[in-house]
């Protein structure tokens, strides 16, 4: 129990809150996130910056799920081999997910971490939300 208390003491000053950017289902079931700027971030971040990040993510997910010649070819080839090529090959979607992970890491390093924010990759939340963790602005960490 004592441990829980210390955890609480340590936790609450560290993370002040989390903001969740929900999915935008207006175009169907494709993966898109709402670009509406959450009010909690107003003091930390530019609206435009945030919208750009989300829009870039939306574009990347659209690229992952795009129906086009290449994806059809991959699908047909997979069907002909009774889908066993999925065991050997990395799918198009997975390749784009890696790209997305790199992009988010990059954004965190350049833009969000300096402002005490942290973006979580939506794949870690089941592609439901983009979680933005807001860290408290503390100049010296006492840790107690």
């Amino acid at each position, binding site marked *: 129990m004592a441990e829980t208390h210390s955890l609480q003491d340590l936790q609450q000053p560290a993370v002040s809150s989390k903001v969740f950017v929900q999915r935008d289902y207006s175009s169907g079931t494709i993966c898109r996130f709402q670009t509406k700027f959450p009010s909690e971030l107003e003091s930390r971040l530019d609206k435009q910056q945030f919208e750009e990040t989300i829009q870039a993510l939306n574009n990347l997910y659209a690229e992952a799920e795009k129906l086009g010649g290449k994806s059809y070819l991959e699908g047909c080839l997979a069907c002909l081999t009774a889908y066993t090529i999925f065991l050997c090959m990395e799918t198009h979607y997975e390749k784009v997910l890696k790209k997305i992970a790199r992009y988010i890491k990059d954004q965190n*390093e350049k833009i969000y971490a300096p402002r005490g924010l942290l973006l979580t990759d939506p794949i870690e939340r089941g592609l439901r939300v983009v979680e933005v963790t807001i860290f408290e602005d503390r100049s010296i960490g006492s840790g107690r």
Partner: protein
Amino acid sequence: MKNCEYQQIDPQALSTPTPTPPPHQGDEPEKKTEPKRPKRKWEVFPGKNRFYCDGRIIVARQSGVLPLTVGLILVTSGLFFIFDCPFLVKHLTSCIPVIGGVLFVFVIITLLQTSFTDPGILPRATPDEAADIEKQIDNTGNTSYRPPPRTKEVLINQQVVKLKYCFTCKMFRPPRTSHCSLCDNCVERFDHHCPWVGNCVGKRNYRFFYTFIVSLSFLTAFIFGCVTTHLALRAQGGKGLVFALQESPGSAVELVICFFSVWSILGLSGFHTYLVASNLTTNEDIKGSWSGKSGEDVTNPYSHKNIFINCCSVLCAPMPPSLIDRRGFLPADESAQTGGTDIELPTLATKSEINVCTQGTKGLLESAALPPLLSTSCPQGKPQTAHPCPDISPAVNSDPSPELSTGCGAHHRASSHRDASPPRHTKTRSKKCKRAALHIPNPAFDAPVSPTSPDTGPGSKGRGHKGASFAPLH
């Protein structure tokens, strides 16, 4: 890496009458004596699924009649190859066993893939997400009773669609998602729960299922045709059908099985071909969601209005990833905290933050991030690794970098993205697990309220899963 983990208990210490207690958190005495091996997320998965091969294979709790399905297919095909093929090869052509063999292999492979693939399970909402949603919906703050069913309306392609709130998974279900009561999971693009394959059929395994039933109908029809030809050839010359059946008894069995199954399987294939062409799911078709029964002008908002594009989008679309990270590792010793029933939200939050923390802090460390982040965010990870709590802060402040990099590095490696090789044999094994080894913290969140399915009882029922069962949110 071992800095933050439990020390191995000295066997000599155990045998002596006054052993020094191992330096772990005093919450609960550690039952096992060896250092805890990191648990994989499938071991604490909250749904009613079973996992094999260390999380590579996922099936529903009840295998249904899958053994019967496999048995029937094997028996029928076996009899075909033993009794009919020799005769037909001699009298007709040797292509027959080849075609039969190809179809049989197709059927078995697609059946196993349908049964053992994650159908598109949505991981349950993290406690923070659930709290956020609750805050948005319910401003009264009174959660002592089950609130009325919550719905949210969205406009999809100019069509109003109602999204329902799932009480088990604590989130608004995305469109076309349904909660399967047998598997106790929300499944994306839920088609139906098929007892024949012993699994749900959803977004990720629908193409396997469709290929399975189509190839099975071809196989059944092919065997039926071959058996009929075989018996007809044998009965030629006035010998009669009875004589033919006596000579080849296996064919009789095949005939019966195929006769009764070909109609239902062909019918099912036809039905699903219709569904694929109109981009519908069985669930929607049965409920009549888009058939305009209510009198309004409703159309299927997901259809591309073109049969070819509909078929391609259902069967040939890029394979979506598995959203439940079955083979990922849990952050080090949250898996051992079985006594975590009374832990509160902030501590709960740490678990979901851990992976955030590890990935975030590792990157931040590398780029020499802010001191507050270093000293405050890493302790979130460190207490989980069993350091006694008074030691945390001095440990961090006095010796931040190596501890952090090893401790957080351990977490990072343990629960890492598949690129960074996990300490286990994952990398050397099949790449099938690549699909599943996406990095997601999966909260083992035991819902305090009853799920939407009527046949399961309320409260935290014994799901038989190891790992933490957590207190209600509020």
